[in-house]
């Protein structure tokens, strides 16, 4: 009985948490259009965030997705070789990268770089009374801090996902050429034939949602920081853990939806 009660309480907390995220997103959306703050300054802050969270992540995301591309090609080749279907490596890499791994790896790198940073930044501002200071200056912390982050991430995550698609395919291509089964030209053609626009758009839609979720969780954790430096560490950790969990969950839901939609089409 105790166990059932605990499961019930935990589920209730989870639903409330997700409700909190939705509320933060809703408030940000409202403040984006009805902001009491100046639009030009808002865009400036969003640009600043986009540089830090998006452009700053380019090198590491390029490197990781390139390697992921090589790994998928290698793992695929291992099986495909036995079937004598090495020419399918290109489609295996391009489809698994664009539909799944590109956006997912991007999201996980961004969680580590930016989701944690959002929680730490806002958490520290809570501890040092900077959030209170913003409020007494009639600068709503959500309008001032969160809205630019949402804007930046909503734009940058899809862009990063497209870039990581490209780098992943490039990784597969390098393997294809080195293994001697492809030339650069033939790999590109094989990739083009394997991909349909739908593969790329599903990845981009997922990346957009991941971006919003990472921002919401990072900021929410930051705001819920209690007193003291230890609390900032706690918020940062939970921002990362919760973001990864939610991103994977959402990925699962999206994949199921896309799968069902494909079945009926």
């Amino acid at each position: 009985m105790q166990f059932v009660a605990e499961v019930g309480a935990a589920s209730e907390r989870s639903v409330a948490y997700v409700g909190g995220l939705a509320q933060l997103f809703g408030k940000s959306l409202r403040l984006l259009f009805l902001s009491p703050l100046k639009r030009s300054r808002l865009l400036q802050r969003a640009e600043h965030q986009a540089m830090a969270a998006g452009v700053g992540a380019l090198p590491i995301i390029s490197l990781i997705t390139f390697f992921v591309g090589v790994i998928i090609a290698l793992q695929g080749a291992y099986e495909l070789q036995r079937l004598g279907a090495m020419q399918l490596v290109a489609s295996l890499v391009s489809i698994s990268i664009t539909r799944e791994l590109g956006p997912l790896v991007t999201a996980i790198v961004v969680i580590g770089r930016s989701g944690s940073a959002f929680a730490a930044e806002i958490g520290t501002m809570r501890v040092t009374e900077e959030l209170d200071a913003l409020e007494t200056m009639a600068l709503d912390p959500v309008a001032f801090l969160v809205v630019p982050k949402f804007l930046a991430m909503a734009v940058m995550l899809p862009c990063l996902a497209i870039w990581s698609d490209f780098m992943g395919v490039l990784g597969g291509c390098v393997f294809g050429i080195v293994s001697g089964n492809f030339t650069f030209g033939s790999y590109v053609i094989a990739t083009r034939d394997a991909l349909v626009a739908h593969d790329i758009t599903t990845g981009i839609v997922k990346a957009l949602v991941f971006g919003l979720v990472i921002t919401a969780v990072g900021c929410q954790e930051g705001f819920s920081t209690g007193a003291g430096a230890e609390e900032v560490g706690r918020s940062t950790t939970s921002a990362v853990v919760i973001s990864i969990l939610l991103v994977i969950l959402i990925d699962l839901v999206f994949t199921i939806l896309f799968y069902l939609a494909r079945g009926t089409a």
Partner: protein
Amino acid sequence: MADAVISASDLRVRYGEREVLHGLTFEIFHGETVVVIGGSGSGKSTLLRTLVGLEKPFSGDVRIKGVDIGRASAREMDDIRKKIGLAFQGGALIGSLPVGENIALPLLEHTSLKPTTIEVMVRIKLEQVGLSGFENYNPAQLSGGMRKRAAFARALAMDPEILFFDEPSAGLDPITAAGIDGLILDLKEAYSMTMVVVTHELASAFLIADRIILLDRGNIIAMGPAQEVRDSQHPRVRQFLDRVADTTQDDDVDHLRMFTEGLR
């Protein structure tokens, strides 16, 4: 006297179940400097946070320039906040912005002044608090006293009608603390602003105050002109002013309750 700029009636504030302010009623008038003194845990910081709208009253009301801030809409509250300045105890400067931009922030967000005008205003404010030339320093590079002064400059940025100070001289050496008191007196003379200062430093309280409100465990136990409070014969007031430690628990039952509270 003129209309009250700030008025509170039967103001009660709670943190969860615990009531911190037990029904405070007072008025603060235009141009006067009111110092709220009290020991740790007396509720003076809570009172300050309530006056600027960071805490909501549980019951009773607080009016600033006639607006009930417990029930004001976000927009009304923003309008009020543009007319007040608050210097936080630790400064609470935005750590990611240099000092100059911290002071420029409210001007950039709330006014349509030209950037060059704002730059001049920032320099004037910094000069007023004795921090000329520190525009480009990061808050982390300043000493505690300088951070407090930078926070004053930011509180002054919008030329507020009411200035609030939270523990302006706490944690500072006597010379720096005297400098801060001098600064408050200068501001009082120069702008005839309404100022509310929360402190536990008696010397500085009597130096700068027109009127004093003495808080004790969430109640006002003395209120009036500085001299009147200084001469008060109320035992708790005397204890506070004469710096006498709490030696005996004044109520044995209360004392015992402290150990058993919350147990079933």
